[in-house]
């Protein structure tokens, strides 16, 4: 249960960083923390008590659930794409406005 609470703290932390920070790079870092917390959640739910890694040894052993791992692999790819696109946009903004602080961007 503790680990779920810790994960929830990570989730809220990411969300707070995205909302409160004005620097766009820090916002992107916040977004990454936010997304990672959900990935960790998927890993947590796949754990089966006393479960072995999901590699077939014999039919009687208990295995952890491999499906969430596969799902989250896709989500990680999506997250990388989002991050790189966001960084590319930040470069473009920096070239146009010479700043990446959001409150300064709103004034111009």
């Amino acid at each position, binding site marked *: 249960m503790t680990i779920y609470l810790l994960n929830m703290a990570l989730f809220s932390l990411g969300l707070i960083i995205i909302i409160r920070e004005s620097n766009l790079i820090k916002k992107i870092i916040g977004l990454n923390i936010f*997304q990672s917390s959900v990935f960790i959640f998927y890993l947590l739910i796949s754990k089966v008590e006393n479960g072995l890694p999901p590699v077939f040894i014999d039919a009687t052993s208990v295995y952890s659930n491999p499906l969430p791992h596969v799902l989250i692999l896709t989500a990680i790819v999506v997250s990388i794409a989002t991050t790189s696109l966001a960084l590319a946009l930040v470069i473009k903004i920096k070239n146009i406005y010479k700043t990446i602080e959001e409150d300064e961007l709103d004034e111009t």
Partner: protein
Amino acid sequence: MSQIPILIIILPLIIVPIILLLRNNLYSYILSIAVSLINLVLTILLLQYVLKSGNLYYELGSWSAPIGIRLNADLLACYFLLLINLMSFICLAAGKKIIDDTVQENNIFLFYIAWLLCNIGFCGIILTDDIFNLFVFLEISSLSSYFLISQGTHKASPIAAIQYLFIGSIGAVFILLAIGMLYVNTGTLNMTDISQSISIGNISLPIVLSIGLFFVGIGIKSALFPLHGWLVKTYSYAPSIVVTYFSGTSTKVGIYILLRVFLDIFHTIEPLEYYDLASFILFLSLLGVFLSTFFAIRQNEVNKMLAYSSIAQLSYILIAIMLMTPEGLSAALIHIFNHSIIKTGLFLTIAVLFVNQSNITISDLSGYGKNFPVLMLSFLILILSLIGLPLTSGFISKWYLVSSILDSNVWYISIMVLVTSFMTVFYAWLLIEKIYFSDLVDSKKYSHFEFRYSFVILLAIASIFLGIDTTLTVDLSEEISNQFYMVLDK
């Protein structure tokens, strides 16, 4: 015939790498418009097939449902597919010159790739029967739409794109977490399977959390009233043709996800009624209609005015859905189709007239009625349709909306709907006055007719046609909502 659902997704996916390898602007345009046309034809064939012989399932790799991934083309999916592919085709057909003039020369082929990927994402969301696939397709369409938005001529367009990226990603992560919660509780990702394995008796914490997370995520995607901020910014800074495309599709797809999740996946526990979510959303939407209509009147820029008007119309659609009656659902579906045609037409007029310009104010339109008589007549028809004058499609939607509200137990809302409809006249009048009763500012503007104007005229004719002959929208919508509520009653 049974391959059509997968073809709609896979054909553009094959075209995308070809465009990337060719790196030629003209060929990429020809390929994208060809594939959109094929998609449109396939969608019509699919709709006919589904109308005749019921749901069409396609199992990917022949793995059967709970284990394999399945595409499910039911009537609701076909209805939205028709809308999406029609709008994509019209915007591409009318938008060749606009795209050439607004987007940077070396980015044009990438622009078409992003456009096709965005359309693939929308079609995938609509067709899939696997809830994790829904998330993946949602991200495909969102990521490509961030790129499309950043290509505007206005210097603030990258800012609009990155702000939409942050809010859109938060929404997507909420949906991802909601899917995880559902998976914890049911152990399956197939939508049909999930809806069978949750029942009113065993509502646990993950299900409740999942409902809440879905609500926020979908609210962001469909611009539900307090979460609508991104829409106005996006619509004012994105390239005009992208705005035209998104006005008819992206928020409508958000509403599709809402229908799928709350009326299909969760139908056994009726979350909208059980937790009083329906009255909550109804209240927010009413507030949204009032405030956004009010804001629309105060706007000076045409795009911002139309954006606020879009939020108001989306709120009407949500109000109709949240009545939780079959009549309400069919009114919402009718309005989704009609509003897409009207708004696409209005944004397209602005896009074809001011090809290389952003921040178009209302006074820029002064005197255009004399110089562009046919185009402006179409614009006028579309505006009148937005107000809901008889003989236009807007009237049909408003009629069904108000009558469905009167039939429900919250009949007093109909007064507010009528009042806000009347308020629409104010901002519509601001436009009409400038167009027809002001002198021309720039007399050099020529009135030579161009091919791309004809699509606006086509949409205006469609708007009148749907106002007189309602077989397509009304009959189909009633059929869909009857199917939905028949399932609910079981």
